[in-house]
């Protein structure tokens, strides 16, 4: 059911995660081919963010395999996973709040800074050379996201929308092949959501990325994703393209409910009028 022309980038099979007695993820399976835009949806507490944490190594799977570029990622510390090419954003924005916008992006280059501690302390020419280079790279990156004027600003002082953009910019600066976005539209109004959707398309095309997205707003999921996987109670209950998902009775029952417009109409009718 996926695009077989491209090689598999991420392959998760039989993934399980237990917290104490609680089984948060059960036999989770997911395959993503290179260049795809995949959505992961499901009710709150279904285990979506746990899957993200498993992929990025913040949690270690109880059993099962996560293969990224044909390499098993289970048990590998998060920073190494990032270095092999998986970056993510967080549901509630996690910037480095007291650092400047520029530094937020420059941190992404740390693992390939090109100079070591001693160079930094003694300030060798190597330090100056590489520092300049990575600074310029970071500035270019900010330019792509139209944040270059903000480089000296402390991250926590940015407005919400810019913080989101900075977070995505920072994740992309790590030069991932797979980008995980955790509810990027949370806390956005409709107008912002539209720009976000454009942004997602834009970064995928420009950086040749593969994207896995968790989202609640159906408009986003249905609007940008090529494939969707639906989770409930830690299990995959359905997968398919947006049209298939919207008509899948299991999904409608567990997750989507009646159409939103229909519901709104019903509620308006019920509204009791007061003076």
């Amino acid at each position, binding site marked *: 059911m996926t695009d077989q022309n491209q090689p598999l980038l991420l392959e998760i099979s*039989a993934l399980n995660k237990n917290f104490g007695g609680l089984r948060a993820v059960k*036999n989770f*399976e997911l395959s993503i081919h290179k260049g795809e835009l995949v959505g992961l949806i499901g009710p709150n507490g279904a285990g979506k963010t746990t899957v*993200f944490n498993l992929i990025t190594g*913040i949690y270690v799977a109880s*059993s*099962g*395999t996560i293969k990224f570029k044909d390499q*098993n990622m289970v048990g590998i510390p998060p920073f190494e996973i990032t270095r092999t090419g998986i970056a993510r954003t*967080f549901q509630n924005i996690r910037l480095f709040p007291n650092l400047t916008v520029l530094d937020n992006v420059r941190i992404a280059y740390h693992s390939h800074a090109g100079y070591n501690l001693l160079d930094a302390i003694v300030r060798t020419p190597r330090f100056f050379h590489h520092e300049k280079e990575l600074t310029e790279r970071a500035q270019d990156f900010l330019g792509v996201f139209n944040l270059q004027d903000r480089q000296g600003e402390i991250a926590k002082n940015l407005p919400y929308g810019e913080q989101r953009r900075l977070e995505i910019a920072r994740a992309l600066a790590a030069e991932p092949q797979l980008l995980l976005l955790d509810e990027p539209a949370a806390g956005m109004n409709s107008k912002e959501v539209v720009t976000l959707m454009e942004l997602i398309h834009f970064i995928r095309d420009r950086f040749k990325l593969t994207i896995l997205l968790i989202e609640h707003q159906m408009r986003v999921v249905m609007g940008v994703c090529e494939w969707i996987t639906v989770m409930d109670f830690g299990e995959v209950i359905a997968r398919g393209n947006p049209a298939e998902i919207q008509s899948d009775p299991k999904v409608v029952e567990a997750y989507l409910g009646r159409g939103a417009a229909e519901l709104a109409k019903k509620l308006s009718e019920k509204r009791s009028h007061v003076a």
Partner: protein
Amino acid sequence: MEKSTTAPPVSFFQRIIRGRWIGKFMLAAISILVTVGIAFKASQSPALFFQQLINGLQLGFVYALIALGYTMVYGIVRLINFAHGDVFMVGAFVSYFAIANFQLHAWPSAVIPEINPVISLVIGTISVIFLAMATCGFLAVTIERVAYKPLRDAPRISALITAIGVSFFLEYFGALPFVFTSNFITYKRPFEVTTWYIQNGIHHLEAGVEAPTGSVLFSNILIIIIIISLLLLASLQFIVRRTKVGKAMRAVSYDKPTARLMGINVDGIISVTFAIGAALAGAAGVLYATAYPQVVFWMGITPGLKAFVAAVLGGIGSIPGALVGSLIMGQAEVLSAGYISTPMRDAIAFTILILVLLVRPTGIFGEPEREKA
């Protein structure tokens, strides 16, 4: 849907690493070595061993009362209240002055001369404890209002530094000649010590007489300490679990802004928590001074530190944890003094703490730290 994928075979070496076996093996080796060593020495003189256990029990229960204050305050405002040990000291001094200068422990027989002396003593002693508890509670609330409350929105470390400052202040202000003086003062116990020994039954030990060899001694102080500590612990547990104030404490400890939205007076609840914790420390001060009859302005530092370690050991924030941690600390202290090395005793206590933290990073009863990505 069910697709059983067999995991790739894991080599022996990998299994050792995944299972963290090297570190576990080292810890296990250390603990087995120590246990065997103590067991061997204990088997040579079981009476001495049981004597040490009893001694440790007494110490442990006193620590528990102090540890609870640390744990409660930490639980509610995430502050390591370094002044807590000094509040304990104030409790001991208050009871000293009440007994030595005002004979508070004998008030019932002073008011009603024909009262049964035993009943008089019991009521008197309880009033001394209540006085110390009340004073300490009041003191702690004052400290909280003056020194900690203004810093509630400041970085956590500011309040910690303030706590250290308060601790210094209480000690050195107490050392001034017109306050508590800097002398070591022999504490006047509200009641006399009676000792019993166990050897084929319980016998009373006359003063100035040696107990027969191979017997195990205990005193009325031990019994009183255990009874009062357990009573206070039980009432604390009742307050926290069953009463409205206790539930509010737990709510405030979890989420202050939301607690305010529910109409809970957060500052009031924090003050109450400080007061209860300090009151327990005050009671501990009285019991401690009764058991080890000397008071001096710096007496709170060491028990304070030990109790704090006990609270961490048990899992700071947890009430049963404080009790268990304290009992472990009491035993660890007497056993290492008795069987390993006295001068290294504090080092051993802290080594135990560090080892426990390595196995259980938030203490024995501590809840794992919430980490949300």
